[in-house]
Structures are given as C-alpha cells and as structure tokens.
C-alpha cells in the first residue's frame, strides 16, 4: 500500500532546490525499489527453499509450461520497451506519442495478466491449489504478489492515460518516469522469476 506514496504528485514547481539535482520523486522511487528487492527476494527464496519439499503432487515439473510463459515473458518485456518510449516521448513533450505508448504499455500489461489468469485457472484444474502442497502455497503467493504489482501498474498507467485528456501531462515528465521505473522493476522481477522458477525447473530433463 506504500504505493499511495507514489501516486503523490511531484512538487517540482515549488521545490526550488534539490541538493543532489535529482527530483525527489525519482529518489523516492529508487529507494522504494531497493526496498522491494528485499520484498521479492524473500518471496523467491521461500519458493527455492520449499522447492522439492512438497509431500504430495502436483509437482512444478508436471504443470509449468515453458511455451506459455515464454510468450507472457515476451509480452512483459515488450511492455517495458513501450514504457521507455513513453518516457522518452513525455520528455520531448510529445503528448500524442506519450499517450499512445502509455496505452500500449498498460494494454500489454493486461495481456500479461490474462496469461497469468489462464495459468492460474489451468493449474487449479490440474489440482494445484494454495492448500494442496508447498508448491501451491509458494507459487501462488509469489506470482500472485507479482501479479498484484502488475495490476497496480496497469491501473496507474490507465490513470495517466485518462488524466492526459483532462490535465496537462507535459510537465509531469518526472511523475511518468517514476511510474515507468516501477513498471520496469516489475519486469526485472519477472526476468528473475522466469529463470529461477520456470527455466531452471527443466534443467536436466532435456526438454
């Protein structure tokens, strides 16, 4: 819920000086992301610690799907590209382009969430539940928390999109950049999850 913090609008037009020259909001976001490393680190290491300790199936190797997850990872990576383009556009004060790329980012975020709900439903039908075994508990809690981060990001981006029709976003470059930093971070967390949880699971199995 600390994200409320991030929704706070920058005071750049009143903060006459920043000692380091870096806008306050950016320092705030980077500090938050540093803290979030510990947050996701705890989730991911819980998964690793409990890996192989489930007493009953289904086990991850039976249900995880590399093709589906590769597709969703690709979608999230591309949304990161769009986000970077949106930030570049708002720095040029190009409102149209900013709006376009923000929408594209949020849209791809939604597709990612679609993949995730497909995956969750599929797993559920194959007997993986939160209550079933340690794999279910750790997997849903970790990817669910990541998904919640994505969902908050999508909401945030759509809010910018709507706002751009009512307010002037040309002086909100720092704010949008902060949203972007958050979005990219969600992406790099997924890079780690994709490798550690999905790919490594299949090492030694030979496809």
């Amino acid at each position, binding site marked *: 819920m600390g994200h409320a913090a991030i929704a706070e609008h920058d005071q750049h037009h009143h903060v006459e000086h920043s000692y380091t020259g870096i806008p306050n909001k950016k320092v705030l976001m980077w500090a938050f992301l540093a803290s979030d490393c510990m947050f996701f680190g705890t989730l*991911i290491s819980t998964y*690793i610690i409990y890996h192989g300790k489930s007493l009953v199936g289904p086990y991850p190797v039976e249900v995880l799907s590399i093709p589906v997850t590769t597709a969703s990872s690709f979608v999230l990576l591309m949304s990161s590209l769009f986000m970077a383009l949106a930030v570049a556009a708002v720095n040029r004060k190009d409102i149209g382009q900013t709006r376009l790329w923000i929408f594209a980012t949020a849209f791809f975020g939604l597709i990612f969430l679609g993949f995730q709900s497909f995956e969750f439903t599929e797993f559920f039908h194959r007997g993986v539940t939160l209550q079933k075994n340690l794999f279910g508990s750790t997997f849903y809690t970790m990817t669910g928390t990541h998904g919640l981060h994505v969902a908050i990001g999508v909401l945030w981006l759509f809010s910018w999109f709507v706002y751009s029709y009512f307010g002037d976003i040309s002086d909100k470059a720092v704010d949008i950049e902060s949203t972007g930093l958050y979005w990219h971070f969600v992406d*790099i967390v997924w890079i780690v999850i994709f490798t550690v949880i999905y790919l490594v699971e299949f090492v030694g199995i030979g496809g």
Partner: protein
Amino acid sequence: MSGEHHDHSKTYWAMAGILAVVTAVEVAILYIAIPDSLMLTGLYVLAAFKFGLVVAYFMHLKYDNKLLTGIFFSGFTIALGTMVAMVALINYQPTKIAISVKDTKQLQAMTQGNPENGPAVFSAKGCAACHKISSLAGAVGAVGPALDGLSQRPADKLAGKDVTAYIRESIENPNAYVVEGFPAGLMPANLRQSMSDTEYNDLVAYLAKL
C-alpha cells in the same frame, strides 16, 4: 532533472530486440544436450544480462546520476546476500552431528570390556548370591533368574534388541525387564554405581557371552 534529455528511443528498440533474442536463447538452451552445470550457469548469466540491460537502459541508470545506481544496488546486494545465505542455511545445514571414524572406534574401546575379568566382578559384587550360572563356581542363588543363555534372551523376547544394551539396561534399571515368575524391585538399583567403568564393562562383556 538529470540534465540528460537525449532521446534514446532508437536504443530502446535495439535493446528490446536483444532482450527478445536472449529470451529465445534461454529457452533454446533447455533443449541442447549440455551438462546441467553448464546449462544452469548459462541461464543465470543470461538472466543477469537481461536484468542489467533493463536497469541500465530502460530504467536509465546508465545515463542517470550515479547516486541512484548506488541506492538501488545497495538494496539489491543486501537482498541477494540475505537470500543466498537463507537458502544455504536451510537447504545445506547438516542434519546430524557427524562423528568421525576415529571417534567411533575410541568410543567402542571405551565401552568394550574384557570378558575374562567378568567372573571376578560377578562374585565380588555379590551377584552370585541371587543368580545361578552353571559354568561359574559359587553362582548358585535362586532369588533371581538364572543367567545361563542370557545372550539369547533378548532375541527370544524382545525382537531386535541388542544384547549388550539389554544387559546394561537391566543392570542400570533392574525393573526395565522383569523375567516372568520373579518379583520386581528386589534387585538393588545402585549396582552400576558400586563399580568402576572398567569393572562394569568387563561384567557386561562376560554376561553377553553366556
């Protein structure tokens, strides 16, 4: 502002291309026949590479104030260190206290008595007054059960019980196993305390051979 407002859009497209290719390579690696250790190393290196690209270019750290890099990687490093330590602590902790072979032998030597000295202890501690042993002169008592063939008793009555352990337990705690037809509580409970470690080990070794 960072003062860096060059437009990096072209770089972003290039980076996205690299990221897509690397992701494809990651998946492809899974299907190549290489040793697991090599495969794992490859996957982690590629993930770190992708991580680095996003942080450096999309998140702009390459162009931004170095302070921001410092802030982020301080947190990242402490998180990574803590998590690696955690996994190691829980998954690689020794579950048993390891005793070396040398220790085990010393332990055996310490508890292994000389059966030839046993009869003397048996008589000296007054055991013979209550227990009969056919092969030992003077051991004619009938208050307690005869000890002939003692080594077979746990095998008959307590499947799997070690003879030595049975004898030790019966001396240290006389009521642990009471032979049918004999009253409990007659045998002195402090017999073990009345003899030295050597005497005790010798006695047990002798009884185990009956």
